[in-house]
């Protein structure tokens, strides 16, 4: 994006530069044309030339009349012809080689007519009528004021033309100078813009580098902290279990009055409470231990091939007491006969137990929990635990998978657990290469499904 923008910027810069250069060159060219016109005022000379040739014609006539050396009628005729040509040439010149002056034009036209009258007379002279020379001289002499006027006008008009050209040259030069100033200013602005962009980009990239470095540091710190936490949990969980086992054992002994009945009887109840709390605590610690192992990637699966049905049966029988107490029925709805599975059997049972336990906990008295096993079209095993409880609101569906989340505490305040169950199940099924899905419309029940990949499914009852 930035690259495209800078390319566009460069293209615009080049275009601007090219068009400005082109206009400058055009103006310089125009100026050159004007300068040429200043020199090219030969048209202005023609008036003076007419005067010169008129004088030469007059002296040729005088020379012949007084028989001066080198004089001849031919010379007179030649000088007349040359003067005639000069007088008639001017009006036919290109407009830029002429004076735009009515008086000059009229004067020139008049002389042109006068000279035309002389043509037959000169022809007669050449034919031998030399006695007409004095008359011709007088007639030519009569043209002198007009000839002189034409010459002086030529000089005057030429000077005016030159001045005008000089003025327009100065104007053109000024225009070129202004354009160069504008171009230089624009170039400066462009250069400054590029420079600012560059400085800005430099600053940004430095900032980005700093940010990346600090993020990398922060990330390393977070990872280290996380690792430390996991290691701490793994160690502590283990250390916590040891004293808890004593508490569990002795509280059970007291509760059950193994060494004799407790007096008063309330002590026995208190010991029972201690036992239950400790059991809960143990479950919590076990969960933490599992989670931290998974976090620390220390969980090793003991994969083995086994039949699926006995695992389900085991789980259902294990929860019989709890379900009875909760007045919830747990039923195997559907299974795939003879299906064998490659999995860590202990973890498989743990996952299933967790889901069934959860389903019972989140069911109202009289609720029903169904366990079923089925194969998908792709050969995946789907272990489904379905209840008809109140379900999970849609907004909580993702949250329930997070550790320590326990659904809506208001609705199920009576339920037990630290909220680790689903999180552990999810981690365990992921370690098996599968995934956990939870579906609920938030009103009528929840369906939790363990998806095992097809490669773990063996002998699908065929």
């Amino acid at each position, binding site marked *: 994006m930035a690259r495209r923008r800078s390319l566009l910027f460069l293209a615009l810069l080049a275009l601007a530069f090219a068009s400005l250069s082109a206009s400058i060159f055009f103006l310089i060219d125009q100026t050159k044309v004007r300068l040429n016109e200043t*020199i090219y005022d030969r048209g202005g000379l023609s008036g003076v030339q007419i005067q010169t040739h008129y004088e030469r014609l007059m002296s040729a006539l005088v020379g012949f009349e007084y028989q001066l050396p080198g004089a001849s009628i031919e010379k007179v005729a030649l000088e007349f*012809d*040359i003067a*005639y040509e000069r007088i008639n040439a001017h009006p*036919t*010149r290109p407009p830029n080689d002429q004076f735009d002056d009515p008086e000059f034009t009229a004067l020139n036209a008049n002389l042109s007519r006068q000279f035309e009258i002389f043509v037959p007379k000169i022809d007669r002279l050449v034919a031998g009528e030399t006695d007409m020379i004095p008359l011709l001289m007088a007639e030519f002499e009569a043209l002198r004021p007009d000839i002189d006027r034409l010459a002086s006008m030529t000089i005057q008009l030429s000077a005016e033309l030159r001045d005008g050209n000089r003025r327009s040259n100065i104007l053109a030069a000024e225009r070129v100078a202004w354009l160069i100033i504008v171009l230089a200013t624009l170039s400066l602005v462009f250069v400054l813009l590029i420079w600012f962009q560059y400085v800005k980009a430099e600053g940004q990239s430095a900032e980005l580098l700093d940010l990346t470095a600090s993020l990398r540091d922060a990330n390393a710190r977070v990872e280290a902290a996380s690792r430390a936490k996991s290691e701490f949990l793994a160690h502590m969980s283990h250390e916590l279990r040891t004293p808890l086992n004593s508490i569990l054992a002795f509280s059970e002994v007291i509760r059950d009055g193994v060494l004799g009945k407790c007096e008063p009887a309330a002590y026995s109840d208190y010991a029972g409470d201690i036992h239950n709390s400790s059991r809960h605590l143990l479950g919590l610690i076990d969960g933490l231990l599992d989670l931290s192992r998974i976090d620390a990637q220390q969980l090793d699966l003991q994969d083995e091939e086994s039949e699926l049905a006995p695992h389900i049966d085991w789980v259902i029988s294990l929860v019989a007491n709890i379900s009875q107490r909760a007045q919830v029925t747990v039923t195997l709805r559907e299974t795939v006969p003879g299906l064998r599975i490659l999995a860590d059997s202990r973890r498989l049972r743990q996952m299933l137990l967790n889901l069934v336990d959860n389903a019972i906990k989140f069911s109202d008295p009289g609720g029903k929990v169904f366990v079923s096993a089925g194969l998908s079209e792709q050969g995946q095993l789907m272990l489904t635990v379905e209840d008809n409880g109140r379900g999970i609101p849609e907004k909580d569906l993702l949250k329930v998978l997070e550790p320590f989340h326990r659904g809506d505490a208001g609705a199920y305040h009576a339920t037990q657990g630290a909220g680790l169950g689903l999180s552990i199940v999810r981690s365990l099924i992921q370690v098996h290469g599968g995934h956990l899905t939870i579906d609920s419309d938030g009103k009528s029940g929840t369906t939790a499904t363990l998806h095992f990949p097809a490669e773990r499914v063996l002998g699908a009852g065929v």
Partner: protein
Amino acid sequence: MTAERQRPAATFRAIRRIGRGLIVLLVLLSPLGGAKAETAPVILTISGKIDAGKYPDGARFDRAALLALGSQALTTETHFTRGPQKFEGIRLSTLLDAVGADGSILAATALDGYSVELPIEDAKRFGVFLALTWNGVAMKVRNKGPVWIIYPISEHPEVNDEIYSARSVWQLKTLTVK
């Protein structure tokens, strides 16, 4: 006194007349150039570095001799006229080849004494033309004749410049190869 003074003059005039007659006779008898001198005037003379064997005293051309070298038509604008003009004449290079010109500069002089030097390479580079007929009329002194050097602007627009207008000599009389 007066009669005596007039007599020698009359005698002198008679001798001059006889002399002139003799010259005319000699010219008429001579096989070369005699007829030319009488019938068609020389309009262009070329001298300088040309074929000395063929033209020991410079090459002189009348109108017909020039056209005989290779008459061409040319329509072009000129520095001194408005709009395209029709000319007939010869290319300068044709004339230079014909006289064996061997130089780099050509001095062109007009009847009124105007003279300019032009590089001989101009002849081939711009196809410089020697016009003898303008818009169907044989050019005379009264009409920039008898010969006008034309730089054909229509063929080579770059010659529309002061330098070349100065070289476009009209009423051309002589050329000198240097």
